[in-house]
């Protein structure tokens, strides 16, 4: 039986919709209303984990496939295959600061690995302060002059009277597949991929006109 990891956060609904469109029997709203995190449906074991944990389950082979944002894939240096990139849930990793901020020497973020790569790539010598949440607050309260965070609508940035200084990375959700299962269960995995790809393309065409 195949095990698929679904992110519990902002990608949850679209992820389930995609699998449903691909013909999978996914857990429904009644299921989700329970506190349960594991469901067997249509020969698949669906597991619901935090967004940031999807790449971990797939990398370790504890899930065969999953849907994860590129932010989490990069942050975990996840080596799983990423055969399908989705059009929903796209956003940007941004460098944000208060207007008139001094040069960047200290930056708060939930993504220390991505931040490190960004800084190194621009030869900026700055300390990274890892935070667990409310990252923009760090710039407001002068914990750091800058923050690096995911921006969807930009509302949080505006509310905190901050401004965007740079795009760190374009972020999109991807279907990820573990390397071991891809090699040893090639047939079933290729079937999964092509069904998801078709569902994606179908949804694409619907959106188009």
């Amino acid at each position, binding site marked *: 039986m195949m095990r698929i990891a679904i992110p519990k956060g902002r990608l949850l609904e679209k992820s389930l919709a995609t699998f449903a469109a691909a013909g999978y029997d996914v857990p429904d709203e009644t299921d989700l209303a329970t506190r349960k995190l594991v469901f067997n449906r249509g020969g698949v074991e669906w597991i619901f984990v935090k967004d940031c944990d999807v790449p971990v389950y797939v990398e370790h*082979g504890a899930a065969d496939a999953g849907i994860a944002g590129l932010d989490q894939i990069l942050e975990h240096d996840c080596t799983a*295959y*990423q055969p*399908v*990139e989705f059009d929903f849930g796209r956003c940007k990793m941004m460098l944000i600061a208060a207007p008139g901020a001094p040069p960047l020497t200290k930056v708060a973020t939930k993504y220390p690995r991505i931040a490190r790569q960004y800084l190194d790539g621009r030869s900026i010598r700055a300390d990274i302060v890892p935070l667990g949440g409310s990252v923009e607050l760090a710039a407001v309260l002068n914990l750091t002059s800058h923050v690096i965070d995911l921006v969807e609508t930009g509302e949080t940035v505006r509310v905190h009277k901050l401004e965007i200084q740079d795009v760190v990375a374009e972020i999109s959700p991807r279907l990820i597949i573990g390397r*071991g299962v891809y*090699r040893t*269960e*090639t047939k079933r995995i290729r079937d999964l991929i092509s069904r998801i790809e078709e569902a994606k393309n179908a949804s694409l065409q619907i959106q188009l006109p």
Partner: protein
Amino acid sequence: MANKFRYPTGVRPLLVEEAARRKQIEARFAGRLESDGFDEVFLPIIDYVEPYVQLHRGDASKQSYRFIDREGELVAIRSDFTPMVARALAPAIAEGDLPLRIFYRGDVIRVEATRLGANREMFQIGAEIIGDPTVQADVDVLRLAADLARAAGATPVIVYNDASIANTLGDDARQALVSKRIARDGSLPELAVRILDGTATLNDVREFAPLAADRLDAIAQGAGSECLLQLDDVDAAAGYYTGIHFRVYDADTRKRIAEGGRYDDLYARFGTAAAAIGFTFTIE
């Protein structure tokens, strides 16, 4: 250090039971290899970095413990056997001796901050045939790898491909095959798309890489049923493989347990041209 029980990353002692278990595995492997006419060589636990510089793929060198010795040379603790075998044997090979059947074993120590955990000491045992460029050698080695995997209690699935094919497709196609994410907008060769989709046949490949296709055909006829040709099993960098490149998985755990292939140019780098094919099992 804070803790008196810790050992450096990548090593730990094996006490009585574990040592016995390790010895049993070693004996099973070594027994089979010896009875097949393979002779053992012992390779040093440290070696200079420089002779291997051009062989390393990407940051591989950072995976090993490295230090400067008393003469100012950069030295590394063993983290990969295959190139060491070539460096050790190349100067000693006389043409009349070929083909040689060699095996080796020992600890490899990696220091890398591996992704998502996995920082264990590893024991490797490997074998190679030097000086035999034939398809038969390829098939023999595949069979031997399968037998050894079974002897170690695994259910082998051997995925193989020819490392030279990816070179013919161009960098973009290689990258797409590595990530498994193909732009279906016509920007990539159709063969690449078909390889990824699993619909490509050796006839499709033959157009671009006729020698590799013929070779794979011949191998397929000789190889056991545990061997699966997977044309999309491509690495980001070529490494030292020149022909067949295979990985042995255990179907039960889906873990990779061995890797091997043909590296016909490797010995020449160390002074003696000789075809070679081999594999290495890694035991955690």
